[in-house]
């Protein structure tokens, strides 16, 4: 388990090293257009859908921001898009119930509840961030507690653990493949390391935590409320994947033993818990911007929960919309496939191609 964590942290560090090796022009070309917030959100959605993990996206973004490849402001929409993209896992899982109408109605409502919550959060908080910079300013203020905002340096104790190995790998690969070849190989290693490390951590922890997850879910099965948020967050931190944590709920919602309003706070907790991965990744970079984007991820999700769960009048909105989607989906089941392909693949791809 510690080895997997080390691989993950090393991979985040290698991302910065590899990007530095590519050169400034190549990096600029790679991320051209990402300063458009709509492109940023679309990149976040598409990257997460393709990786089937928002943790991979957010950890990669932390590495990129920490390496200076993209700015903090440009990375905020990408992080928000990752939140939206992660909900595809549950929606895909719900297709397993497509032949049983009532079960499908429940399970689609359960899956899209997470979609609706995340989309509403982005619709409200992205304009707020663009107009006021509230999320990034809060993150910068919080980062000042542990690092030097003026110089941009962040003396992470974990960085020292990976820096030596990272330097050795860089030396070996650049020596063998040349400057550009070495940089590309380092980037490939980084992406494989981040994704592989997280998949390994998730698989291991899912097995280890199965009993605890069971007891926790039994405790909140019949009661809605803040305890569900705590359980959702704890489960997600434990398995390092909000997709896995919320996917546990799908069969329970399908069977009707977990009601939508009781599943809702668990889902919100998963959104909060998933921010730990980015915070963890930020410990592998020596620039405070990496920590700041991880803190933006945290403040964005906390703000979303405070807004759409903390305000009683708004709390019911995602649930009502999700139930309505569930009803429509049950009546027109083929549309769900269209929705998945259009919303998670075609729309973000088209937006990226058109607006980039």
């Amino acid at each position, binding site marked *: 388990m510690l080895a997997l964590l080390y691989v993950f942290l090393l991979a985040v560090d290698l991302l910065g090293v590899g990007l530095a090796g590519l050169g400034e022009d190549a990096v600029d070309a790679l991320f051209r257009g990402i300063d458009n917030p709509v492109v940023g959100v679309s990149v976040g959605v598409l990257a997460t859908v393709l990786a089937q993990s928002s943790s991979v996206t957010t950890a990669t973004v932390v590495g990129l921001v920490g390496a200076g490849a993209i700015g903090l402001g440009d990375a905020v929409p990408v992080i928000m898009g990752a939140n939206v993209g992660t909900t595809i896992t549950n929606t895909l899982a719900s297709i397993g119930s497509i032949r049983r109408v009532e079960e499908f109605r429940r399970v689609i409502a359960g899956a899209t509840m997470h979609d609706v919550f995340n989309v509403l959060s982005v619709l409200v908080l992205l304009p707020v961030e663009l107009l006021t910079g509230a999320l990034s300013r809060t993150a910068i203020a919080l980062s000042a507690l542990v690092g030097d905002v003026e110089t941009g340096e962040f003396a992470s104790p974990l960085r020292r653990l990976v820096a030596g190995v990272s330097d050795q790998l860089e030396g070996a690969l650049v020596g063998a493949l040349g400057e550009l070849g070495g940089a590309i190989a380092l980037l490939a290693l980084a992406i494989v390391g981040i994704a592989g490390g997280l998949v390994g951590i998730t698989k291991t922890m899912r097995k280890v935590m*199965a*009993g605890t*997850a*069971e*007891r926790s*879910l*039994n405790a909140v*099965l019949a009661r809605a409320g803040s305890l569900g948020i705590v359980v959702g967050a704890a489960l997600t931190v434990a398995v390092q994947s909000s997709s896995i944590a919320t996917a*546990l*709920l*799908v*069969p*329970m919602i399908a*069977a009707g*033993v977990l009601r939508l309003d009781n599943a809702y706070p668990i889902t919100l907790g998963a959104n909060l818990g998933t921010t730990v991965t980015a915070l963890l990744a930020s410990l592998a970079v020596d620039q405070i911007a990496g920590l700041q984007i991880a803190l933006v991820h945290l403040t964005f999700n906390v703000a979303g929960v405070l807004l759409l769960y903390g305000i009683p009048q708004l709390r019911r909105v995602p649930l009502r919309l999700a139930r309505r989607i569930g009803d429509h989906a049950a009546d027109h089941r083929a549309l769900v496939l269209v929705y998945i392909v259009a919303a998670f693949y075609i729309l973000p791809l088209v937006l990226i191609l058109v607006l980039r």
Partner: protein
Amino acid sequence: MFRWLRGPRDGLAEVERLFMEMLRDGRQVFDLAMQARLGGAAPHEVAEQLHATEERTDEAEREIRRRVIVHASTHGAQELAASLMYMSIGKDAERIGDLSRGIFNIAERVGPPPPGPLRDDLHALRGRILPAITGAGEALRDADHDAAEALIVEAREVQAHYREQIDQLLREEMAVPQPVASALTYRHCGRIMANVLNIASAVVMPLDQLDYPSPSNDP
């Protein structure tokens, strides 16, 4: 046979605990119902306790279903066989309470049969079913193959006896008071014993053979 599937202290241990409670409650409902049917207690004296206990078995069955779903969601297919087994025998335990309430309903309508061979036979039947219910739970808890197989044999004997009694009542070869009520009581007792047999079969039979124990598919 499913003992090793359940694991040391996982969620299925809690399901097993709930199941044992259901069996204890089912046994109590049967005991109260037979007391009312055989004149050991007036129906109105035991009604409240009987209904409360039976409702508890119904709720326990629902709780078992919920816990099995949560267990399957968190553990995947690794304990699927044990999960399905508890779904199946949970229904058997619930039916024991349900059928016992049927016996109580007969007692409420017609009262106890007058003293005689039929009443003595029902007394004897009660004396065989009560320990069988307890024994089924113990055999499952201890994964005791010998006890389960002995219970299956006992259950078959009881079933053969009640079928014979019902046949005689149908053919009017037995001149007894309350013939219909007696046939129904035998029928309910026989069905209760069938559910006990199903529970015992879970100890020794493969999952696909649950509820169908026969000499041909004995392990």
